[in-house]
């Protein structure tokens, strides 16, 4: 399964499911990472981590480690 951290900058995808439980999973869910939601990778920070993504009309920053918990399919 592809994950969000594997997306290239400028590319979009859809959230399939979260491989995260507990507080991290809940945070991501609350912030809009739910099944079927479109997500676009905008860029990585100058040092390579964290990532900037667009989801639900806003910009969110998360680390590669967290993005790895978001399973995606093609948009």
């Amino acid at each position, binding site marked *: 399964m592809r994950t969000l951290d594997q997306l290239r900058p400028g590319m979009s995808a859809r959230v399939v*499911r*979260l491989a*995260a*439980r*507990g*507080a*991290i*999973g*809940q*945070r*991501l*869910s*609350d*912030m*809009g*990472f*739910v*099944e079927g*939601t479109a997500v676009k990778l*905008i*860029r990585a*920070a*100058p*040092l*390579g*981590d*964290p990532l*900037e993504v667009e989801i*639900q*009309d*806003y*910009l*969110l*920053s*998360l*680390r590669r*480690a*967290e993005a790895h918990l978001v399973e995606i399919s093609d948009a």
Partner: protein
Amino acid sequence: MLRSSVEDGSKPASREGATNGAAHAPLRVAVVGNPNAGKSTLFNALTGLSQRVGNYPGVTVEKKSGVLEVAGRRIELVDLPGTYSLAAHSPDEMVAVDLLLGHVKGERAPDAVLAVVDASNLERNLYLLSQVVDLGLPVVVALNMSDVAERRGIHVDADLLAARLGAPVVPTRANRGAGVDRLREALRAVADARTPTRPPVAYALPDPLAQGVAALRSGVAAPVRAALGRDLHEFELLRALVDEEGHAEARLRALDGGVAEALATSRARARGPSTVPLSALEAQSRYRWIRQLVTGCVRRDEQMPATWTDRIDRVLTHKISGTLVFAGAMLLLFESIFAWAAPAQDALETAMGWVGGAIGAWMPEGALRSLLVDGVVGGVGSVVAFLPQILLLFLFLGILEDCGYMARAAFLMDKVMASVGLSGKSFIPMLSGFACAVPAVMATRVIENRRDRLATMLVTPLMTCSARLPVYAVMISAFVPQRSVLGGWVRLSALTLLSLYLLGIVTAVAMAFLLKRTLLRGPAPPFVMELPTYKVPSLRTLLQRLRERAVAFLARAGTVILAMSIVVWALAYFPHGERPAAAPTGASAAVSAGAGAGDDVAARAAQLEGSALGRVGHALEPVFRPLGWDWRITVATLASFPAREVVVATLGTIFNLGDAEDDPEGLERALAKARRADGSPLFTLPVALSVMVFFALCCQCGATVATIRRETNSWGWAWFTFTYMTLLAYGASLLVFQGSRWFGA
């Protein structure tokens, strides 16, 4: 599926006249909203200057309230911390739910909720609203930042949204004050009517969650009733069920009577054969409801315009330009504090000097005059003079925060912070530490992870706060040569200041690294942070916050520092009257204004040395001698442990006390003039450096210690911070003084 007709809930059920309402207690309205939705700006626009800040019992959440009046009816607005969700994993996060349900001790349940919603980012903002609606309170929605939404090609039909929500939706532009009058009126009407909002397009928990909640309700009913004397609200049960290892669960588990089993069985019931976490189930169902709600309400332009945020981000988060802008912003900050604050500072100093002079001329010589001129005016005056710098700093940080750059700074710095085991989120509090460690320690609340938060809290006081500036300013102006370096571009004084800032940063980072590997070791916490849309900061909000800061600083200057000034003055003045016989002040002053005063100064120096303060300083001098200090520096430093900015006042008292009032020399020249017993200058460059390094690293701030105690709820961490910083300061000063003497500086 969608019913767009306006139903009963959208209209106030009863219309009480203003005359009738005036007799009632003030209405109470809680303000909720996502971070960056413009909540504070709207709160300010609604309440103006009538704000009060306090704390909720037992937690570290700031309680901010204000009052407004609509048609003779008073409404108390209670501002809740910005949040994305009512899910709670800490006591602080639970305050919102508790307050909204009226479960906070001494706090009446609100009559209504004002939900501030960002129109440009409607879906995610409505997530919180969907939870608030579950609480069964009357809701008014402020559809804020509609101008930003329009510019981004997002058009929201507020009337249709209102009809579907069954609640008034008032478009506002908090930064321009637009829509505020309508909002006031809506708040009054809804709070007065007290009809809970029931959206015609209703949200229902998905079946598994509803079954789980029902199972939990019956499973814990007996122990809950026994312990609390009431039943849990449906929403509390939901939180206990869904927020795994969250705060509602922890509170339940604290009760006896088979709660753990009830939780396990009801969760198993809710989960069924699915592997999807319950929190994902809740989020999915709420976002599905939100999609129903907004379909047809929100129209998007075919061609979404490239936003300013995107264009700006391309520059500000770019590898090279982003780093350059970041470094430039920091440098500008340091230069501005020194260069731009100077005129206002001079004016304040002149004014205080005039006041002191006037009192001195008006009053007869004696203890009272000395107290007023040397203790009160001299002490407070020299600290108040630094107000311009502090305001500039808070203004600068306020602009960075309000325009959205702070989050970008966290984004840029996260990798760096991660290398010492912290996150980019720690960067913001640590940056705030440049202004003042007290709000900075409080700002660590944005960090969810306890260990990260503790580590940040414990090292933030090492950041060069504005209270250190007075010390640096005096020392640098007096002892660092007025020279330009690097081809005339940078003054040596600015470079010294920058080095002191760097010393604080490097030490803080090293300590954080150490703490995260020893006392606060643990798995890496997540880093999930919104990057808000760039916006022009609201001048009104900025000024309001500046006013708060200025008042807070002056209150400190007026209480702690004034008290310290008077104590130090008294310690330096008493015992009095042991003046050497040969001190004909009038005669010597008549001979010559300058040289003839020598005997008098010596006499006063002898008086000071014989005072209580002098004796303590002498007793402790051996401890600080290896740092190059004499008893006077020791005394000034000891006196500054409650609040480091006091050192300037104390130095002023110590070194000016011997000088006549008509001597207009500044503290800097007084310090430069100071001599040791053998006649050599007291302050050489190594001594000045040693003093500055000590002040850079030492925890001389009672307010910080008290704040850390409050935030950690333990004296242990507070004393730990105090102790490690003080030892660090002593060691580093020793190193600097002995080292710079070794190199012959």
